[in-house]
């Protein structure tokens, strides 16, 4: 209950932003707010993995891309040529297929968005299990490089496969009708609706993760981060918990990918790029690693600014710089900076160094 109450102010802010933009005739901001919310969904999942379970992942754009690309491909690529194969027949008999027409009037047979969403997320989860079992045995540099390698493989695969549209990506992804009258799409008329869908999803995700952190599982995860050996000796199956967290964060990333792809009506290979993964890590770091609220706040602010084009052609450079500066001066996140204390410490340190040299 307490957790729900802590979400309330955020809910007020969300509604407030909507009212403010509609009052000031700046509703176009809602588009970037919607997209930022989806990216932030991935970021809070990554925050649990990095901050609480202590595992770095430089491949989370890969999971986002698995979600986005699979749901895009399944809902746009016609299955008519494979109509007689067993998997297609199974999908059909389960009612997961949808007949329609493409732009040129040719008939299409595609997977329904709901079924595609579930397939995409389940695939992401399965891949996370398969990758996670060996990868999470590694530590430090090795873990970073292995996850980076995973991310690059996904990027190469989408870039090289015709099925995923190569360098062009997949476009004309249909709307995702969640409930009658409620659909995820980029239609102008659905903008407000989509703003609330995205934020609703993010708030639900946030409540779930806050619940998780304040529970037996969350304490075990924080314990692993504090001292893996001691957590092990307390009966915590550390390997299993790390894997489950990895899968959980991959699922969050994949769901974000599915929704954002339907919202944008398409997805391109840059979403799978290494730079995206690094950017997510940067945002979690700025937010303070083990700080869900910090990750959420920074996820919204930085993604919003980036999507508004505030950083111009220095977009990636800004995130690179943020990474370095945060890690150099405030490894516990930007919210932890106590300016006066920091200044004093810096001056004090310099004095000490000079004394040391003498």
């Amino acid at each position, binding site marked *: 209950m307490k957790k729900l109450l802590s979400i309330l102010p955020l809910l007020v802010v969300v509604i407030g932003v909507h009212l403010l933009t509609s009052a000031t005739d700046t509703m176009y901001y809602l588009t970037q707010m919607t997209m930022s919310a989806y990216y932030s969904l991935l970021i809070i999942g990554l925050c649990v993995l990095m901050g609480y379970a202590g595992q770095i992942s430089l491949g989370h754009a890969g999971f986002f891309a698995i979600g986005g690309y699979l749901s895009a491909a399944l809902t746009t690529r016609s299955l008519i040529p494979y109509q007689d194969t067993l998997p297609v027949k199974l999908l059909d008999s389960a009612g997961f297929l949808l007949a329609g027409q493409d732009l040129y009037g040719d008939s299409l047979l595609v997977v329904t968005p709901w079924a595609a969403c579930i397939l995409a997320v389940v695939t992401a989860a399965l891949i996370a299990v398969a990758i996670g079992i060996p990868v999470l045995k590694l530590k430090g540099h*090795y873990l970073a*490089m292995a996850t*980076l390698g*995973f991310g690059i493989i996904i990027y190469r695969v989408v870039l090289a496969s015709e099925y995923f549209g190569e360098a062009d990506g997949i476009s004309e992804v249909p709307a995702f009708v969640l409930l009658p009258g409620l659909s995820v799409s980029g239609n102008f008329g659905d903008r407000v609706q989509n703003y609330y869908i995205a934020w609703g999803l993010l708030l639900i995700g946030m409540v779930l993760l806050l619940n998780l952190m304040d529970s037996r599982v969350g304490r075990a995860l924080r314990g692993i981060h504090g001292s893996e050996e001691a957590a092990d000796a307390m009966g915590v199956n550390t390997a299993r918990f790390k894997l489950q967290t990895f899968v959980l964060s991959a699922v969050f990333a994949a769901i974000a990918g599915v929704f954002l792809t339907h919202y944008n009506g398409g997805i391109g290979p840059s979403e799978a790029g290494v730079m995206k993964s690094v950017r997510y890590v940067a945002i979690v770091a700025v937010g303070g690693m083990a700080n869900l609220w910090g990750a959420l706040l920074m996820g919204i602010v930085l993604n919003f600014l980036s999507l508004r084009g505030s950083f111009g052609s220095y977009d990636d450079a800004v995130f690179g710089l943020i990474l370095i500066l945060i890690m150099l001066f405030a490894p516990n996140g930007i919210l932890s900076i106590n300016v006066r204390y920091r200044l004093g410490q810096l001056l004090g340190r310099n004095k000490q160094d000079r004394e040391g040299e003498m």
Partner: protein
Amino acid sequence: MTLELSIQYLMAGITYGSIYAIVAIGFNIIYNTTGIINFAQGEFVMFGGMIAITLLNFMPLPLAIFLAVVITMFIGALIEICFIRWLKSPSVLRMIIITIGISILSREVAVHIWGESIRSLPYFVGNEITSIPILGARISPQVMWVVLVSALMVVCLGLFFKTTSVGREMRACASNRKAATLCGINTRNMVTLSFVLSAGIGALAGCIMSPITYSQYDMGTGLAIKGFTVAILGGLGSSGGAVVAGLLLGVIEAFSVSVVPLAFQDAISIAILLGILFIRPQGLFGSKEAAGLKEY
């Protein structure tokens, strides 16, 4: 596969392999003195090539390459002094993130200076179509340059570490930093020096490979992953291992062209990396006993 084609592939493999080995040795030099994997290692290679290409407008090729290497060494020193030197026992995670940040920043600086276009240095001797026939295959003389200069670098580095007093101090620093400090060695300067050295060999590699593989602002990440694969494959910290592993990876990659589509070529080395990390993180030649003492 005909003999000529095989030799063609083999030579291509050796060319790329030499570059990978040099990048891996760059990783090793910094790893040995600091325990850090420098994710920005590939950017040194990129800087070397790009700077030389620009300088070529004003001066002859040998001088341009020489100056490019010197400038990149300077950049290496600058990076170490600005971002690494004054951190007190930072965590591994922190160092990883910082060097990744440096890598991105370097790439962005490069794209704003040179743009996204693909450039290259001219062939050191002759041009694209000059070739030397070897056993029926036609091999570009630039391949010889790559192989010879790389070999020379490895030999010179070996001599540097074995015979000069600075080299010996660096090795002392590598085997036990605290003890080295107690012996009066300025370990901080050794760390800076390791960045300078690895920037230098990276830059030189960037120059000699540029005519064949071209230079572009974003070439660093791919090279870093491959260099790291080689460094791990050869056993992290071992130069001899890096040479063997580099050539091995280069040759495997070259021959895989006949089996795997070009677009998936990068995926092969990454698959090898993942495989080796999972099965034998101590590398092909490292001992299991010694590896048990390290943290993977």
